[in-house]
């Protein structure tokens, strides 16, 4: 575990796995004065109450993860993304091969971030684990389904973004006025199917 300074009032806690991320988040949740607590792939960003945060991290057991009861969610996708050929070429397969790989895997929501309801899904087949674009697009259309590194995700609305896009979904992924604003939540099990 490594603590990295992030401006005057925040720390980036770096660990080695998603399990350790969950342990750090659990240890820091509920500390009075913490303004933001943002779990991600290998880090937890924490803003505020830094002395209490450092104290809480002193004797933390990183192997202890909270229990989960996953929901199972299916996301229909139209596979016609602008980067489908690039992804196929990089994976040394055909566009149909990309679709087959993407729909056969089972994914889990590791965390939300980047934009409201933007869920990072782990479980992406090795061949589809590819870098982001060198220069991000200033506008990725709503519903776009993309890949980047070890993750796949669907864009809840049009935003800038650097992921390679392979398709799109018509599901409403985030509604700030709904009781449960985010369609996909951490811990959910997810499958993609051809729409």
């Amino acid at each position, binding site marked *: 575990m490594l603590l*990295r*300074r*992030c*401006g*005057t009032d*925040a720390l*980036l806690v770096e660990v080695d796995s998603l399990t350790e991320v969950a342990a750090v988040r659990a240890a820091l949740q509920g500390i009075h004065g913490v*303004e*933001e*607590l*943002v*779990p*991600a*792939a*290998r*880090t*937890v*960003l924490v*803003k505020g109450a830094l002395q209490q945060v450092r104290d809480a991290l002193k004797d933390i057991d990183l192997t202890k993860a909270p229990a989960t009861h996953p929901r199972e969610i299916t996301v229909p996708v139209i596979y016609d993304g602008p980067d489908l050929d690039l992804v196929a070429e990089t994976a040394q397969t055909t566009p149909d091969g990309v679709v087959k790989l993407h729909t056969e895997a089972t994914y889990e929501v590791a*965390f*939300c*971030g*980047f*934009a*409201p*309801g*933007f869920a*990072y899904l782990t479980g992406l087949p090795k061949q589809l684990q590819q*870098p*982001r674009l*060198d*220069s*991000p697009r*200033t506008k990725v259309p709503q519903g776009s389904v993309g890949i*980047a*590194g*070890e*993750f796949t995700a669907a864009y*809840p*609305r049009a*935003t*800038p973004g*650097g992921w390679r896009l392979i398709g799109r979904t018509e599901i409403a992924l*985030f509604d*700030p*006025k709904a009781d449960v*604003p*985010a369609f996909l939540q951490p811990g959910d099990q997810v499958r993609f199917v051809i729409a």
Partner: protein
Amino acid sequence: MTRTVTILRTGPQALIQDLGRPGNAHLGVPPSGAVDPHSLTLANRLVGNDETAAGLELLLGGAHIRAEVSCTIAVTGPGVEVRIDGRLADSHQPLHLKQNATLEIGTPDTGLRTYVAISGGIQTPEELGSRSTDLLSGIGPDPLRDNDVLTLGPPKPANGADVVPPIRILQTLVIPIRLGPRDDWFDDAETQLRQGSWTVSDRSNRVGARLQGTKLNRRDGEIPSEGMITGAVQVPPDGQPVVFLNDHPTTGGYPVIGVVDCDHLRFLGQARPGTRIRFRPID
């Protein structure tokens, strides 16, 4: 009777902003809120509102507002020409508008964003605890359109004078920056930041101030997406830094070389395209 004002003309962009919705980053919800919060809270104090009340954030001024009831209004941010029914009035002062009077806001001399507070505050529905428009995620009201009518809350007595000089944006800004969390991705991050020089790109917006100029040399590769705070200076592979402003994504995968203090961030948020930027690394 409902108290309202009519936005006869929005100017280039008019948004409803308060102090935002911090504390929701784990849902992927940006903090949003006024890019120059000092100017918004000043405007609110001048008209007797709580500092957290919602007002207007105008890009390059230009709005015309008609009072449908008598109200007190204040225009802050960079110095700007203000007229009531054609007669010259002052920014950075409480102004009384009679029913049907029209306030016209000119283009600020320097800077980008003008703030307007109206007694009682703007009363749109809150989403996740704030009335702010978040341009990245679409939370909150849409950008205003000509002839939109805004409902106001009940006014409180004004606090009287409150002296804060208009924010003034210089041609060259020197911005203090604290290294980390990913300065180890760069060869001598401190020297690169101190020696480089940039200009604000016209692709900048409330998500981030995009800078163009000296290429920051960094290691190849990517970081697993990680949490981002307002003021983070992210460096994509092309080496051109992006300073995250209020509507920034809550996570990202490009390394953050350093973080600009929130006290200095508003100057970047007020900087017009073409403004020269230098960084001053501090401990």
